[in-house]
């Protein structure tokens, strides 16, 4: 029997449920049985409820088994899983699992397929095609391609990437920067982490392309300290890119220079806000800057700077390789391309679902997600992170794109979907939104710094049943003030989860029901 290749992810989520143990046990058992296997630690496919997901390379494709525990290894060998033998944990061909087969993976096309640090595999699977094209193009042609693609910032704000790039490109300056925002602090989101751990080269490739497009020779990746696994993979990936001449003074002999530095955050949610991130990159307190000037004009160290999210930059190689027009043929309206949605919270099949914009929330939660993990009825989902709206189950037919969501007083954010069952207390969730803002506010502007504290106190009174109607009026007033008066999205959007909870679940706010309506 020839050596069989077996994949066990080294993604942090997979490791969190035992992937390292499984990999060790698998090697040991193979050795005990005198079988040679080629064990590859890949990234995650994003079918997180099946982690640790073990895959076996067979002549007809990769076959999946999961979730595998250490104790399952002997029975897997007994069932001859190396020849795709039948086993209770078997799922057939990985690519045919409906969860994966029904996605449109453009940004995540390689994630979880190979060893994330195998540059040869990266190239074999289509990597570097975009970069090589970009190195032959004039800078304007690159920004035009990105503009044509319709790609919008995937960090949350949704600003067209091509326009941002073109603004930086046109600035005349000795030094410009590309800053990648990998400070993925929103609860319910993990796409940046998964991509960095599963296909880091595509992010680096996107950054080099961005540098070429705008005339920047230096890039920073600001990654949060809560992601130690991703930091290690990314650090190794940058070294390999450097060794291969894909970073440095003369990239692939083109004369193009680009360097990438990794900077680790220090546990401040606000540093996901772009101007706060720039302050932090300058070694300062992560306090937001007033705009204007926008970072494209005056960003890092006062120089013209492209600030993009991980997913935005990681999508650029696809756009260059396949053309902006091809990318723009996915999606609807002004929401073009695909969005990596993340299904989280109380959900049976949690994971990463990259879909064309326009899929409904119901399709994501019920179709892909399979309802709750607990088996209780779904009551609500918070979409778009801690600053996003709580959407009631009755409104799950909303289309998941920028415009449809904002038309429903909600937002896409970074594409996180957190499912709650019927045991959730929405007054407590509203209170938490204010509390989180209190903990994480940078303190620069008053509506956010003090409004969040007053909001929490007022919700405490409402929860305790004290002067409920009066306090609801105070809360309402406070929410308007924070929305209109805050310097950035932290204070400006904290009211969104609060007001959506009040609007859709007034019964959770005690006798306040009529006051709300």
């Amino acid at each position, binding site marked *: 029997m020839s050596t069989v290749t077996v994949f066990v992810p080294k993604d942090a989520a997979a490791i*969190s449920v035992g992937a390292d143990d499984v990999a060790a046990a698998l090697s040991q058992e193979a050795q005990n049985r005198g079988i040679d296997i080629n064990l590859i630690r890949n990234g995650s496919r994003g079918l997180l409820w099946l982690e640790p997901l073990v895959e076996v390379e067979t002549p007809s494709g990769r076959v999946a088994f999961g979730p595998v525990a250490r104790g399952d290894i002997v029975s897997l060998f007994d069932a001859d899983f190396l020849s795709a033998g039948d086993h209770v944990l078997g799922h057939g061909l990985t690519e045919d699992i409906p969860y994966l087969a029904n996605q449109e993976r453009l940004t995540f096309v390689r994630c979880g397929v190979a060893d994330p640090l195998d540059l040869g595999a990266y190239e074999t699977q289509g990597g570097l095609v975009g970069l090589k094209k970009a190195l032959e193009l004039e800078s304007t042609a690159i920004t035009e391609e990105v503009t044509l693609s319709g790609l919008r910032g995937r960090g949350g704000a949704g600003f067209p990437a091509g326009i941002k790039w073109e603004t930086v490109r046109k600035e005349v300056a000795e030094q410009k920067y590309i800053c990648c925002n990998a400070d*993925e602090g929103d609860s319910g989101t993990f796409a940046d982490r998964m991509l960095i751990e599963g296909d880091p080269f595509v992010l680096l490739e996107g950054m080099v392309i961005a540098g070429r497009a705008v005339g920047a020779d230096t890039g920073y990746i600001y990654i949060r300290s809560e992601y130690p696994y991703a930091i290690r993979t990314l650090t190794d990936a940058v070294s390999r890119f450097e060794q291969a001449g894909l970073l440095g003074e003369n990239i692939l002999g083109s004369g193009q220079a680009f360097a990438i530095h990794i900077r680790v955050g220090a546990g401040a949610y606000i540093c996901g806000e772009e101007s706060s991130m720039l302050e932090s990159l300058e070694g300062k307190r992560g306090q937001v800057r007033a705009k204007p000037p926008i970072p494209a004009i005056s960003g890092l160290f006062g120089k013209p700077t492209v600030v993009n999210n991980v997913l935005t930059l990681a999508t650029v190689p696809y756009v260059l390789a396949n053309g902006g027009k091809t990318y723009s043929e996915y999606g609807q309206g002004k929401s073009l391309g695909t969005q990596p949605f993340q299904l989280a919270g109380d959900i049976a099949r949690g994971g990463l679902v990259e879909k064309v914009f326009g899929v409904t929330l119901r399709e994501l939660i019920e179709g892909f997600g399979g309802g709750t993990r607990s088996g209780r009825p779904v009551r609500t989902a918070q979409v778009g992170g801690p600053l996003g709206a709580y959407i009631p189950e009755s409104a799950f037919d909303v289309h998941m794109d920028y415009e449809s969501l904002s038309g429903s007083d909600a937002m896409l954010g970074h594409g996180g979907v957190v499912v709650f069952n019927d045991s959730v207390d929405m007054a407590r969730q509203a209170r938490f939104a204010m509390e989180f803002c209190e903990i994480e506010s940078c303190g620069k502007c008053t509506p956010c710094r003090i409004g969040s504290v007053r909001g929490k106190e007022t919700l405490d009174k409402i929860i305790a049943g004290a002067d409920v109607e009066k306090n609801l009026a105070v809360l309402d007033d406070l929410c308007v003030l924070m929305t209109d008066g805050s310097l950035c999205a932290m204070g400006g959007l904290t009211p969104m989860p609060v007001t959506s909870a009040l609007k859709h679940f007034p019964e959770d706010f005690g006798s306040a029901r009529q006051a709300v309506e």
Partner: protein
Amino acid sequence: MQEPDEKKAVLNICQDHDNRPEDLVEILHSVQDLAGFLSDEALREIASCINLTRAEVHGVVSFYHDFRRAPSGKTVVKICLAEACQAVGCDALKEHATQALSIDMGQTSSGDEVSLEPVYCLGNCALGPAVMINGNLHGRVTPEKLDALVSEADS
């Protein structure tokens, strides 16, 4: 760590960064990684190396949740308390942990054994409740599993 050694180590770290003030966050990370926390002496040294006032350095240290001014316990247990983990019962896990260790979140147990810390998202939102123990991530953590993991890390 003995004081002259720490002073030298801090100087070296600052020198590795060419005493650049814009590298302050990096320098603080490195010093904390080495010494376990940021002492008054270390901050004074850093401020003098990179030509900032102690107030400026203090401002940065106090802004970020990661930086500690006192040593942590041998085992640092970070429990995610953000929404995705709330949806699957992190509050009960937190209650269990604080009772079992007889400390509140943000405190260290007697004998400097275990520090309990809140964290707002570990990026393991599909497999919550999520906990990080000494830098290792764990998913679907039940109270029983937490007890086992803590005693394993502590032993």
